[in-house]
């Protein structure tokens, strides 16, 4: 059985196999492979220049890959021009046609024998209702707000029932509150329609909140593919641990990796860390700790291996406060409900007990 047939049998809608993209001598994508299941919402996440947009454009046929294969719904599309593929796309700029009103924009692709005038008009009205913009249908893009423009772009991309929806940083041009609302709307719409969706984003919160799976990329390679929980709780590399979610990190040396409780030593501080078991004795390591995993005060005293630290700063973030701590040269961040700050008496230079559960310290070889 060839690759395409096998993929279809396994419920896989899109297969990217060993895709490499070079621009001159620069390697933008380096042998990237991944499978996306039918109806899945997958985010490509990474810092700028990691190749996530290049991969999206390769899948769309806008920048064909230099090597490798891309199979969509059992069809090898690697070499097809964009017009012969089956996808809808929303760009960061939306690329709405400014001289056409909302109706004309949404119905732009509904032409040809498959879309007689009446059928196209009905479809346009259906889409306008779907994105909830009925009262604005006659407006031009410039007369719509950013969020409204985004919905028009989405409706236009979905008009022709594409099998694949591509979103290139669809929310990054919007205000934070609109962004949070729209991403849940997009996710709800995607679930209702069941359309396989790929979203490119550099915003990890966005990726964590809407995706079935996240592809974390760095310098043209895939670092990790996993559910949001996997990527957040079990990062595959130091890069993923540092990039996804907020972490404090410090360098340490591995002690007794094969003991019942392996330990990490950073200066005078010695911490129990389950994950250090995979490293060798004396190896230089980098440890990451999520702020919500740090126990403070009385909570910490109950833990084995609690140590003392000095508060170097407190940031008020509304519901929670972030506390910056320093313990014998090791910097940590902790998060706790704003109400607890007074209870703990956390002023600047206050000393208090700190502990971290052994299984919550993420440890990687220090590069």
């Amino acid at each position, binding site marked *: 059985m060839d690759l395409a047939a096998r993929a279809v049998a396994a419920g896989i809608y899109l297969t990217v196999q060993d895709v490499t993209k070079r621009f001159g001598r620069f390697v933008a994508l380096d042998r990237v492979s991944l499978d996306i299941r039918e109806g899945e919402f997958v985010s490509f996440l990474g810092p700028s220049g990691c190749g996530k947009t290049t991969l999206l454009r390769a899948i*769309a*046929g*806008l920048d*064909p890959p*230099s*090597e490798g294969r891309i199979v969509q719904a059992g069809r*090898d599309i*690697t*070499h*097809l*021009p*964009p*017009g*012969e*593929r089956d*996808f*809808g*796309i929303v*760009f960061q*700029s*939306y*690329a*709405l*046609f*400014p*001289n*056409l*009103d909302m109706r004309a924009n949404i119905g*732009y*692709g509904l*032409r*040809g024998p498959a879309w007689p005038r009446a059928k196209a008009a009905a479809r346009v009205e259906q889409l306008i209702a779907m994105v909830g913009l009925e009262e604005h249908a006659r407006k*031009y*893009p*410039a*007369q719509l707000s950013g969020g409204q423009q985004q919905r028009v772009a989405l409706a*236009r*991309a979905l*008009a*022709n029932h*594409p099998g694949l929806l591509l979103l290139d940083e669809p929310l990054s041009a919007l205000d934070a509150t609109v962004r949070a609302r729209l991403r849940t709307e997009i996710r709800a719409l995607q679930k209702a329609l069941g359309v396989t969706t790929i979203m490119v984003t550099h915003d990890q919160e966005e990726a964590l909140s809407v995706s079935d799976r996240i592809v974390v990329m760095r310098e043209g390679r895939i670092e990790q593919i996993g559910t949001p929980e996997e990527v957040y709780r079990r990062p595959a590399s130091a890069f993923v641990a540092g990039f996804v979610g907020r972490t404090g990190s410090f360098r340490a040396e591995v002690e007794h990796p094969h003991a019942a409780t392996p330990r990490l030593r950073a200066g005078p501080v010695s911490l129990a860390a389950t994950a250090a078991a995979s490293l060798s004795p004396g190896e230089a390591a980098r440890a990451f700790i999520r702020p919500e995993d740090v126990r403070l005060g009385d909570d910490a005293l109950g833990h084995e291996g609690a140590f003392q630290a000095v508060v170097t700063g407190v940031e008020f973030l509304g519901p929670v406060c972030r506390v910056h701590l320093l313990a014998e040269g090791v910097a940590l961040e902790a998060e706790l409900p704003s109400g607890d700050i007074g209870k703990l008496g956390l002023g600047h230079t206050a000393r208090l007990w700190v502990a971290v559960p052994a299984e919550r310290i993420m440890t990687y070889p220090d590069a």
Partner: protein
Amino acid sequence: MPDGGAFHPRVSDEQRLMKLALGGAATFLLLGLILPLGWLFARAFQDASGGFVGFANFAEYVATPSLAVSAWNSLWTAALTTLLVVPAAFTYAYALTRSRMPGKPVFRAVMLLPVLAPSLLPALALVYLFGNQGMLRGLLMGESLYGPIGIIMAQVFYCFPHAALILCVALSGADGRLYEAAAALKAGRGRIFLTVTLPGARGGLISAAVVVFTLVVTDFGIPKVIGGQFPVLATEVYKQVVGQQNFNMGAVVGLVLLLPAVGAFLLDQWARRRQGGFLSGRAVPLEPKPRPARDLPLLGFCTLVAALLLLVVGLAAWGSFIRFWPWNLSLTLDNYDFNRFDSAGWGSLWTSVRMAAMAALIGTALIFVVAWMFERGRVAGPLPRVVGFATAIPLAVPGLVLGLAYILFFNDPWNPLGFLYGTLAILVLNSLVHFYTVCHLAAVTAIRQLDPEFEAVSASLKVPLWVTFTRVTLPICLPAILEIFVYLFVNAMATVSAVIFLYGPDTKPASVAVVHMEEAGQISAAAAMAVAILMVNVALKALHLAMAGRVERWTQAWRLR
């Protein structure tokens, strides 16, 4: 589909068509620009019978005193004109963009008047004023108008609007925040002018100086009419080719004429690269506040300049109705009975109109489509770079040199395209190529304002490219397209230098008729023809302005918020 081995993305039919069309554009530029210029270059190294003589022609050129003198004359008159024009144009543009003086639209309209006229028109007006029978001859204190004095005075008028236009653009793109920041840092007006205004306009100042210098060095009409015995490069080329039929020496002078133009062009490119990104997308437009201490002197200056411009144009117009300057000042229409002075009569104006209309129609369509394919075609391979390079060249090639290259190339016995020589077609081709770069840049600027992903969106929606081109690109760019049309028409009407070598017995353009009538001493008839050219251009410009409003309402409604 290739399996392993060579890796070739499949190209859509549209893409293939696009590549073919861009190849056609490259061939057009090759035939209409590169080959003629190459042939000019080759002829400079040949003798009259076509044998290779190396640098002998150049040695002869250097050894001929009159030729070397003409080069020096061209250089210093151009430099002096530049020094006079740029500060005046800067002040005028500054008043139009950075002051609250009243009557700005009027001053802007008056400023543009000389652009619509052939360069000969100010020269003819000066003859009325300071010529051998001029009214104000005494002001020259015994010096003759015919020579450097006349050339420089006429060039100042002719070049002023070109420089002022560039400086208006440079000065209008100011970020108000920079001025607020400077004022908040307690900088005085003088310091703000020196540290914010001038650096912001530096690119425009260099461009304006370069354009004026090049215009003067390469202009043929003014030195022909008013240069007298004062030789400059442009008239020298004409003398070598038309007078002495010495095509090889003409080619050498043509190449010499190309030098300052190419040098100026490269300087401008360099300045542009250094300028880059001064104005960010988030800039806040500067709104000047009323300040009489600045606005009133500027109003006075602009009134003086506008009065001089109107005087020159008005004088030429008045002169064209005078029976016999300066002895019989009664008015007559006799000078417009062109059949009395020139065998082509009114026909030459008709020839010019047909030539300009064809150049504008064909040129606008061709230039815009090529610019669009160049910007948005995503054609692979070296073709886009070749086209991009070729479209930049015409700006650096003086009309006279291009005309000379055409006569050498198309008139050569071996050339199968020789049948074009002396036809209207070659005049159209020449005008189109001569004014190509400015139009191409205008088209590219308009297209770049469109979202770069329009074509990708169309492809994903399975809409053919040409549909998006006609439904979106064309309507949005229509104002720019009309500008290009008017630019091509107006310039083709007024140009002398590009066509002086190329017309045939049945295709003499009006601007050449002006030169011939002036040569024959019929100043009033020459002025009448120059005014007729100006009127055709003014009429077209007025039509454009009247239409622009309607077109705007029709195609640009979406810009309203």
